[in-house]
Structure formats: structure tokens, C-alpha cells
């Protein structure tokens, strides 16, 4: 009796296993492109800052038997700034790892919101780069793009990208500052002045370098700071702005630093940072250091990145500015 029970249970288990086993699915060959088709990707990362480009790669193709590519165009919802173009060359990478261009069409023409190029060689597939230079008019708004391609058989395809939000920030890169020379920094102008060209009202920060004490070295100091932090500095006569400054490290914004780090400072970072109880000086700066800045009138916030320093008493800085 016991042996029969064991056989019965085993048989049940076996049957359940058979029914629940994996079923082999038949492989089907994927169908190819049947006509003119396109695709698009956005290549640039980070915030969309006025004067910087947004780059796209637009791919289009048609089966050879149906014809060839005739033209491609991009229509932006806000006309791009000068320098906006659609690449007329196709690139391949040679054995040395270099990208080699092959001309496939005429240089693009931008008329208002539309940038267009025409193919001059028989091409059935191409990927063209589109560079949209963000105009001032787009600040704080959103921008969309419609990519289109036409073929010799009269077909047209299009691909819509966006909308993308344009940042409120401004960017200024590679400003040279030096001790007792180009040392008066204006956040409003995003510029550096000397004692001959600057004004007190526009001076938000003073750059100085002092070898002693060793913790001083490169510094950014507000004109209203204690004179102990401005040794030997002759300020411009007039109002002394009490700019707030807060030191940061390891914030190598990609747009400012152009280093291997994939970090970006965006509008939301300026909204979130509070400098109410920050000091009005920052000492001991070095390469890849940064400072959050807020002007005395609280109109602007800025992030200043130190690209490089020189022990002789100079530095190169880059800045992102946000208007409150």
C-alpha cells in the first residue's frame, strides 16, 4: 500500500513538471525598413545654457531600390542664434581613430527657424549632426525641434525632439585674474577689471595672492571684508560691496572645467543654495576649487570655478551666473 502511494505521488509530480516546462518559441526574422525612415538622438548633456550649443544626431535612410535621400532640414520652435547649422558632411572613423569627413551635400542654410541642407551625392543612409546655438530669446523658455528628411520618391518623414527647457544661467569661461592687476571681478558684467578700467560699484570680488600665511595663497575677497583679508590692496574709491562667498570643492562643473567629471551646475542648484550666513571672503583657493557667490544687492548668484592657479600670483577662473 505504501509503495503504491509513493508511485502515485511521483507520477503526479512528473506530470506537473512536464506541463510547466519551458516552451520553445519559434524564431522570426525581423522585418526590415520598408521605406524612408529616420531617428534622432540628443548628444549634449547638462543644462541648456544660452550661447552654448545643443547637438543632435539625425539619422535617415531609404532602401536603395526605392530611391535616394534628397534633403534634410530642422525646424526649431525658436530661431537659433548665429552659428546654428546642419552638418553637410558624413563622418567615418579611420584606422588611426580619426573622424574623417565625407561631403554628401551642400552647406546648410538657416532661414529663421529652419535650417536646411541638400544632398549632392547619391546617398541612401546618412547621420547628420545638428548644432543649435541657444539664443538669448530662448532664456527660461522651452524649445522643440522637428527634424525632416525627403527622398527622391517624394516621401517625407519627420521626428520631433523636445521640448527642452533653456536655463536662466549665463556662462563666462577662462577669465584671467592676476595680483595687483586684473583683480576686480564684476559678477554683473562677468568681467575682470584693473584699477584703471574698474569701478567700485561694479566690483563684487577682489582677487589677490599672498604667499604668507600659507593658508592664504589665492583668495577671492569682497571689498567690504575686513582689511586683514585685503593686505596691501588699494580698493577703488566708492561703495564697498559686501559680497557673500562660500568655498566649495569637488564641484568641477563640466561646462566650466572641461574635465573628465560629469557634473553640472543647474538652475535648481542656485535656487537651493543659501549664502545668508556665509562670509565675505574665501582664502586658500586652489585649482578645481570653487566658490558660491551672492552679490550684495542679492540680484545675482554665481558659481566661480578656479581652472588653474599660478604661484606667481595669477589664476584663470570661469563663472556661471544666475539672476535671482
Amino acid at each position: 500500500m505504501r509503495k503504491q502511494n509513493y508511485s502515485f505521488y511521483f507520477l503526479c509530480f512528473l506530470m506537473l513538471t512536464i506541463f510547466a516546462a519551458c516552451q520553445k518559441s519559434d524564431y522570426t526574422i525581423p522585418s526590415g525598413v520598408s521605406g524612408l525612415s529616420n531617428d534622432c538622438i540628443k548628444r549634449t548633456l547638462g543644462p541648456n545654457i544660452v550661447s552654448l550649443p545643443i547637438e543632435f544626431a539625425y539619422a535617415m535612410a531609404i532602401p536603395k531600390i526605392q530611391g535616394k535621400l534628397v534633403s534634410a532640414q530642422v525646424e526649431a520652435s525658436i530661431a537659433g542664434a548665429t552659428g546654428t547649422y546642419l552638418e553637410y558632411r558624413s563622418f567615418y572613423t579611420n584606422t588611426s581613430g580619426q573622424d574623417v569627413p565625407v561631403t554628401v551635400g551642400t552647406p546648410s542654410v538657416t532661414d529663421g527657424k529652419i535650417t536646411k541642407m541638400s544632398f549632392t551625392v547619391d546617398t541612401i543612409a546618412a547621420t547628420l549632426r545638428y548644432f543649435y546655438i541657444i539664443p538669448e530669446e530662448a532664456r527660461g523658455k522651452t524649445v522643440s525641434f522637428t527634424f525632416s528628411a525627403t527622398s527622391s520618391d517624394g516621401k517625407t518623414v519627420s521626428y520631433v525632439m523636445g521640448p527642452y527647457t533653456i536655463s536662466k544661467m549665463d556662462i563666462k569661461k577662462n577669465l584671467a585674474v592676476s595680483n595687483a592687476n586684473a583683480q576686480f571681478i564684476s559678477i554683473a558684467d562677468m568681467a575682470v577689471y584693473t584699477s584703471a578700467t574698474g569701478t567700485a560699484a561694479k566690483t563684487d570680488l577682489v582677487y589677490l595672492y599672498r604667499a604668507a600665511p600659507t593658508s592664504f595663497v589665492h583668495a577671492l575677497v569682497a571689498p567690504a571684508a575686513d582689511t586683514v583679508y585685503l593686505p596691501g590692496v588699494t580698493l577703488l574709491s566708492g561703495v564697498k560691496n559686501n559680497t557673500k562667498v562660500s568655498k566649495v570643492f569637488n564641484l568641477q562643473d563640466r561646462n566650466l572645467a572641461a574635465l573628465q567629471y560629469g557634473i553640472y551646475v543647474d538652475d535648481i542648484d542656485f535656487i537651493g543654495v543659501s549664502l545668508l550666513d556665509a562670509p565675505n571672503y574665501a582664502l586658500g583657493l586652489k585649482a578645481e576649487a570653487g566658490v558660491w557667490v551672492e552679490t550684495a544687492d542679492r540680484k545675482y548668484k554665481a558659481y566661480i570655478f578656479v581652472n588653474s592657479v599660478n604661484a606667481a600670483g595669477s589664476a584663470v577662473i570661469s563663472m556661471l551666473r544666475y539672476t535671482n
Partner: protein
Amino acid sequence: MSKYFKIVIAVVCITSLLTACKKNDLPIDEDGLLITTRRECYVSNFELLGTDYITVRNGSAVIDTNAQTINVTVLFGTDLKNVYPQFSLATDCKLDPKIVGRVDFSDLANPKTYTVISGDRNIRKPYKVIIKF
């Protein structure tokens, strides 16, 4: 044979029940930290960081376990209103008050005091943090 087999199974089951894992009701404090039997209560190391998370100390902090003081010399230009203190404590100790962000050490005339509490929560030692430029 089957009778002896059943007896063996029964003995094994009873033994398992008697020696099964017992849930230890370990005491924890109001912060969810384990209360142990350790009575050591001291600061082993002290660090002070600026807003850029880089040390603002000029040399090592001098910790006097008897006097219960921590003497720190900071770099010229340190903004003492916005610094992050970091205490290293003896095993199982905790600190009161808790450090949740930036601390203002700018009042040099009135040094801040932090209390170290031992692992058994019975010993409390206040440490005064004295900062100089």
C-alpha cells in the same frame, strides 16, 4: 524497524524544539542604538571641516582626556560660523548633542561642550571644544 525509525524521528524533533534559536531581547536606547556593557567614555580624535569639506585645522587637535578638553588651532581666515566638527569616540559611545550639519564655533569666549556617553549609557563626560587661531 519502522517503530525504531519513528522513535528516532521523535527524539530528533524534541531535541530541535528544545535547542531552537531564542530571540535575544537586546536593549536599545531612544536613538535605536545598542546598549552594551562597555564603560569606556572618551574622544579619540577630532576633526573640523570647512564648507568645502577640507580640514581647517592647523595641526592635530590636542585632546586632554583628564581635563576633558579639545584644543584646536585653525587656519587663518577660517569661517567658524560654518564648520563641520567630527568626533571619533570610544567603541559604542555616542555624542550629545548630535551633529546634524554646520555648527557655529565663532563665539570663542564661550566654547561649545559636547557630552560623550558610554556604551552602557551610564557614564557621561562633557568635552569642551576650545578653538584658537
